[in-house]
């Protein structure tokens, strides 16, 4: 039952199980609203997020990808998010260098206690992606019929 409505961005959020996913749960229990087109994928730790996952999301038609993990120093696995931070910094810089709008990718550190921050970040990010419009530069025409 597809609904007729104006274009809305598709956003994939990779959340680490211990902090950010719990933060998302807290946002829920606190009934804090954020756009429905933010879809969360649960990973044990931000260091589990392979650049391939992010590129795959863009291939399949995601307009923005955000990765959320424990604050540096608070990683459940002590150092996972430090590795993730380097990985994402270099990946994002690379995508930017290849002309992919840098606003489409983001990393946020959100603790289990920061339900408010989670909702705020998602609202803000969704807004920013809406501004940027459809991801055409890194999409795969086989997967998505882009609006003319």
């Amino acid at each position, binding site marked *: 039952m597809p609904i007729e409505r104006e274009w809305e961005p598709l956003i994939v959020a990779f959340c680490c199980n211990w902090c950010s996913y719990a933060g998302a749960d807290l946002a829920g229990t606190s009934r804090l609203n954020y756009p429905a087109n933010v879809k969360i994928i649960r990973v044990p730790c931000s260091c589990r997020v392979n*650049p*391939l996952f992010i590129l795959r999301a863009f291939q399949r038609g995601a307009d923005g990808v955000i990765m959320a993990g424990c604050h540096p120093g608070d990683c459940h696995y002590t150092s996972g998010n430090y590795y993730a931070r380097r990985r994402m910094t270099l*990946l994002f810089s*690379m995508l930017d260098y290849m*002309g992919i709008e*840098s606003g489409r990718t983001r990393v946020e550190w959100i603790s289990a206690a920061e339900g408010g921050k989670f909702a705020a970040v998602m609202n803000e990010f969704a807004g920013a992606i809406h501004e940027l419009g459809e991801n055409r530069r890194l999409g795969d025409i086989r997967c998505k019929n882009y609006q003319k």
Partner: protein
Amino acid sequence: MQKLSEMMRARAAELLAQGAVGRVLGWRSGGLGYDPSPAFFHSAEQLPELVYNGFCAANLSKYLIKAGENDGRTLVFLKPCDTYGLNQLLSEHRIDRDKTYLLGVGCGGMLDMEKARGKGIKGVGSLEEAGGAVVFQTLYGEKSCPRSDLLLEKCIACKGGEHMAYDELLGAEETAANTGFDRFAGVNELEDMPAGERFDFWRGQLSKCIRCNACRNVCPACSCNQCVFDNARSGVSAKANADSFEENLFHIIRAYHVAGRCTDCGECSRVCPQGIPLHLLNRKLIKDINAFYGPYQAGADPDSLPPLTDYTKEDVEPGVVTTRGGATGC
């Protein structure tokens, strides 16, 4: 270089005779003067075919992975820049140092036949490197060209004439001094473009890719037994580019997989049949790593920890990509 070739043949013969090495890894002359191929020599009888000239750009260190399956040591000739790749392979346990005998050879910079063709030099019958020039005997007459005009990009951006590892040096004096060329100039240029133009540039370049995998297979850092792109079970395998995305994916992931491990040997760009400036991807990562995590030269020290397997609590946040502003991109 003629002289150096002779020294190399002589030394190789000695070491083979002494039984110090079981085989020699070098370059075998081809019929066209500019087409030597990497080759193993097992006996003194084969050595006359061993050459060393301006067209021996191929880095031999990766062949040591397979050579290691044989017993005994392998004598390998390495140009200064080749030793970085060797060290990287050593640090990743792909090569057994004890089974190699590193003979560092001097290098005056390697030459690019495409550049010669670009200068209208065709129908080459034979060629000779005389001093600072290369003299071609062609069907359309004798053509001469200064060496410096024919240097490969990787040699213009030479890391310097120092061998990072060797058991013995030959003709190091032949080595040309570093040109002092800014290897990041090309990266800066791109970074200064608006995102849209950067995108168009890379689309234009990458759309030429024919997925021949030459860049990957020649790369000393790409030494996987099986590449994810060849592995049906990886979920991302792909043979030919059925969509522009796949061109991007392949080259982004490849550059990413060698990030912090790429020694900037420039082989990827040298071998690309379509002339895609792939080194501009790797150099971007090298530039970022230097800027974000401090200067790092992969392959300079086999015991150093690659930046992506290391961290500090004070590392920059990924947001730097958006906040650093136009000068460095966005």
